[in-house]
């Protein structure tokens, strides 16, 4: 397959992901609102927001890094897409996953986070710095159980290639990691709550305290990029979990159903629990999920 086709299909996949992400965001917000006895947004509101942001002509900037922040951020999100095989068995939708394995996905994620933090930093707003410090703090502990779960998986399947991990889960629901390695799955799912950074783990943007945290200074198309990226991230991270634990997807509809359900878990928890303070969430991740992660490791020893 020549490079051009690959790029075009990657862009197609990306397009689907963005739109599905926006829709999913809308649905989840609607759900959340209903639980809180509110009406909530219209389902197409995210598109309206994006269009508004991208077309805003009145924009200011604080410096080069401020401008590069969203670039890095989007690079992080799109980068994951690049290296993620989306549809199992589809050469077209495996993107550029031949260039790197699971490890590169785990690490390129941070690229966006770092970019965001840097850009927000140059914005010079105190809330940004506070939000970043909280966000980063939480991420460190979230990743620990997740990493342990991944190690358990890598050992279980004796590979770090996502493609192979998905392949190993084919042939029936009982082959999913969810059932073959429930402990690791549980550890990963719990850390997933932190990865999505929804309530109760969203102190980094604590709306009542430091309005939206890191992106406080961002507006217009900068914010548009960030929003786009958020949509991508929601889906692609759900895809990651899907690939790792829920048998992957052999077609787009399955992908959409599975990602929705995975994402729903985090929304569900967010609706039920109040927000954690940062030291609480940090310690929480180092208790239950970490314990599960360690058990997962001990099981494979």
């Amino acid at each position, binding site marked *: 397959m020549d490079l051009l086709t690959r790029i075009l299909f990657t862009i197609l996949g990306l397009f689907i992901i963005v739109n599905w992400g926006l829709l999913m965001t809308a649905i989840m917000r609607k759900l959340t609102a209903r639980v809180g006895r509110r009406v909530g947004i219209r389902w197409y509101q995210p598109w309206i927001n994006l269009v508004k942001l991208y077309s805003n002509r009145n924009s200011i900037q604080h410096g080069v890094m401020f*401008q590069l922040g969203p670039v890095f951020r989007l690079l992080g999100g799109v980068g994951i897409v690049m290296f993620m095989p989306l549809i199992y068995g589809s050469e077209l939708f495996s993107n550029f996953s031949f260039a*790197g394995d*699971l490890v590169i996905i785990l690490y390129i994620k941070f690229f966006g986070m770092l970019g965001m933090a840097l850009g927000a930093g*140059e914005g010079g707003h105190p809330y940004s710095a506070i939000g970043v410090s909280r966000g980063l*703090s939480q991420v460190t502990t979230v990743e620990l159980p997740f990493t342990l779960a991944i190690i358990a998986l890598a050992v279980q399947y004796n590979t770090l*290639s996502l493609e192979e991990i998905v392949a190993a889960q084919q042939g029936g629901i009982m082959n999913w990691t969810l059932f073959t390695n429930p402990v690791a799955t549980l550890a990963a799912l719990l850390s997933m709550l932190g990865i999505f950074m929804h309530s109760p783990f969203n102190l980094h943007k604590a709306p009542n305290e430091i309005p939206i945290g890191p992106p406080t200074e961002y507006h217009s198309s900068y914010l548009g*990029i960030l929003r786009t990226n958020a949509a991508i991230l929601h889906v692609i991270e759900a895809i990651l979990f899907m690939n790792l634990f829920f048998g992957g997807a052999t077609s787009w509809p399955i992908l959409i159903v599975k990602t929705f359900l995975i994402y729903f878990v985090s929304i569900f928890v967010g609706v039920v629990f109040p927000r954690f303070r940062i030291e609480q969430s940090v310690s929480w991740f180092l208790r239950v999920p970490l314990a599960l992660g360690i058990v997962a490791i001990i099981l494979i020893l």
Partner: protein
Amino acid sequence: MVEPIYIVASGLGIAFLLGLFRKTGESLPGLIMLLTLAFMTFVSGQWLISLMFEGGTPQYTYTAGFKPPFSINLLMGQSEAVITTMVNGVGLLGGLYLLDRLKAQGVNSMIVFLLLFVGLNVVVMTRDLFNLFVFLEVSSVAIVGLVLLERSTQSLSAGFKYLLATALISGILLIGIILIYQYAGSLYIDDLVRANLTAVKGGMVAVFLILIAVALELKPFPANGWGLDLYQGAHPGLGALVSGGFATAMVFVLYKLLPMAGGGWQYMMATLGAVTFIGSNLLGIKQGHAKRLLGYSSVGQIGLLMIVVGLSQHLGEALTAIACGLLVSHFLAKSGLFWLAGIIQKDGLRDWAVLRKKPFLLVLFGTFIFALVGFPPFPSFFAKWELIMQLSAAEGFAWAGIVLFGSLLEGIYLFRWLGYSIKLDHQELPSFRLPWQKILPVGISGVALYILGYFATPIASGAGSLSYLPLAFIVLVFLLDFLPARVKNVLSLAGMAFYGYMIMPGLYENDGLRFLFSIIFVIGGILTLLPGFAYTGKRRGFYPAALLMFAGLGQLLTAETLLQFFFAWELMTVGSYILIIRGKRSMRHGYTYMLFSVGGAFLMLAGFGIAYATSGMTSLEALGQVTQWAGWASALIAIGFMTKTATLGLHIWLPGAHAEAESDVSPMVSAILLKAGVFGLLLLFISMGAESAGSKPLFYVLGWLGAITALIANLTAVFQEDAKRLLAYSSIGQLGYILFAFAIMTHVGWLAGFTYTINHFMYKAILFLVVGGIVMRLKTHNMYEMGGLIKRMPYSFIAVLIGIIALSGLPPLSGFAGKWLFYNAGIEKGWYLQGGVVFFSGIIAFLYLYRLIHSVFLGQLKDRHRTVKEISPWFLVPAYVLILGIMAFSANPEWFLKPFGQITAPYFPDSQLTWQSDGTAVGQLGYWNGTQVMAIVMALFVAITLWLIMLNRNAKKVKQFNIVYAAESPETPETTHISYNLYAGYNKALGVLTRPGITGLWNWISEAVTELADQVRRIYSGNGQTYVLHVLTYVVIVYLITTGGL
């Protein structure tokens, strides 16, 4: 050839003659006295040369021509020649030094001075027991007389106590002699040795009394209060004579008499020496009075020599060399120190800060201290090495341990003292006079130490072709120290480049591992020397120290034998110590660094000893041939290296040392020096081999240690406010990764280790260079006092940005290679939990890295920094060169990883990383193509950037405080820039892990030792009568121990 008897005859005759000059003024007698001493030195020196180098035969002098045992005879043999030359030499120099004192006291004092040396010469040469007693009394009485050069109450009481104790001791000696005569019917020492007196019931007591008296003359701990009081109370010039002359002669007497007793007694003597060596050095720790401290040190060193003499039967042919090496170092260094004490006339250790006013005295002081502890290139280094090797070869590991432990204790107070004199904050530094006749002896001692060190090299097993060429160059730079810094910098760079040219091609041909490290050491050295151009003035002492460190590093790579390796290691330690302590508030940190270095080096030495003992080899291959106690050897050596790599528990020296060092020193010590420990560990690991059963537990432990080090250090780095401290902790963490990776002991693990090693070298150098440059501009280390500097220092920002991206391991930069290899290696090895810990630490690294770049460059610019300039280009240039390196690694990891693979392949042929034709690396678990990742990421980056630029082409740049701020306008950057205690919540949750428990432990240990020292030294009540009781009690107790009852 002048007959040895003329030493005695001329001394005595002139002494009597001087009596005629009592009324004629002091100048002429002074001159005569010095000439006589010179003559005595000449005669003994002549014998020394003849016997040592020209194969002369020993000369016996018989009184009145009768043969012993019927007459007294004097022997001038090799040892006698050495000792008398030393004694007379110290007499000559000491006489010159004390000349003004002696003149002030009159001709009588000169007579006493001269007779002291007559006495000592006969004591050394005589082979007759009673004659020895007589002239020992001459020396003792002369010392008591010379105490009066100082007329204070203190010196009077000190002299009297000394007199009381020596009178008792000589009484005991006399009783011993008469008993010996009763049993042996002879006083001729050779007869007595043959007589095997210890077999006779009473003869044993006789021998005991004599030996114990000689031992007591050496002032053994704890029956030595009188000796210490003398050192403290008397004129330092006399201290030099007692320590350099009298003690030297007495050690020889012990050596001469000890064969009278059998083997068990020799162990007893060694035990007494050990007690003295340890006890005395322990008490020195609490001592604050310079001369008394020198006394403790003297006594300690003599204790060491007692050990050597006592264990002589195990040292074989090496005995003479070892004893001479130790003796001559102690002799020169201690006399030099006493003379220095007399020149600056300060009693408090802290007051020695005045030495700073005269740099060349400071250099001499440092020389003496290093010589005492046993650093290269001084004779004591080679002697101590050989001592440990021989003791180990004889399986006397406990003795080796005692020697090393005592030396460490000695290092504790000596280096503290050196630190005071270099760096202690001192309000006023009074100047002092420097009469030439006082400087000359000190200078000669110092220079002699270096020269003798050069000649002492062959003492040590495996000295081989130890190259002194780099040292010669350093001496040259030292002599040119008066030149401006820039000139010396050019010179140093040229030297480094030439050195690289000399060693690197050879290493490239033969040894990939060493070549890799030579890149770090030499190229890194050149790059980190460049910032030196940013400094003005002379930077006295900087270049010799830096070059010394680099020379040590370079010689680590060229070392072929254990000794050469250790030599290089210690050179590097000295150089880096001086570099580190140059920092503004570095006194404490330099001190801690030195203590850990010395302790680590001694552990290493012990390990080398085992290796030498069991393999019988002196080359580095010995490490792989350890047949017995392999676990011990490896563990000791590993701990030794880990003090350099600052593994958890041994890391407490690093943060301060690296943080407080000068701006261009930090990258040297952090990016480059730490790799020396890594190199050492690698050598050890290679020789241990992954598969040997004994080493597996060790590697397992090391893996965990590395992981925990990484975790704790990174976590601690998160909470630092000081930028350089943050980087320092980060280094500890990174070294933890490296330790972990190498301890995996697989092909991929080592690849990860190498990747980390070379990357850490590059990005830590970049970060320290830039941060150092900023510190130079801003005059502060505190990050919360910075902020918004991206506006003023864009190039620095870019460098730091690339540095932190590489460090954090984000793709596409080179750090990711390390992470990827880690995953593969860790999982392949089955080190899941440890691996988890390491990855957790990696993520924590984001926190401090963000903190670094945010607090310094982002956020709000401080008012006082609005006009600050970009950092000096001399800091930026090397940083950007290194960025090129990182970029090359990132763009094509193959270029680096393949050679690493070639280095590793011989040791781990299995499960190698394979390379596909398109450059994809394939491990057992995963795959990764760095070039493609780089291309994809760069393409995305360009595309998104272009898109954003298109969208935001009209974006308007706004002023600093123009931010959304709840309708208010923030005005002061201090309140708007969030930086101080940035991770407060994290601290609440995890800060508990970073509580300085280890530091607390070490502090507790040091306090406990100090307190112990303080309690023990209270036995020195100052009461002369008690001291006499100590002496008698000592006799009784030692008797009880030796014979097991009355």
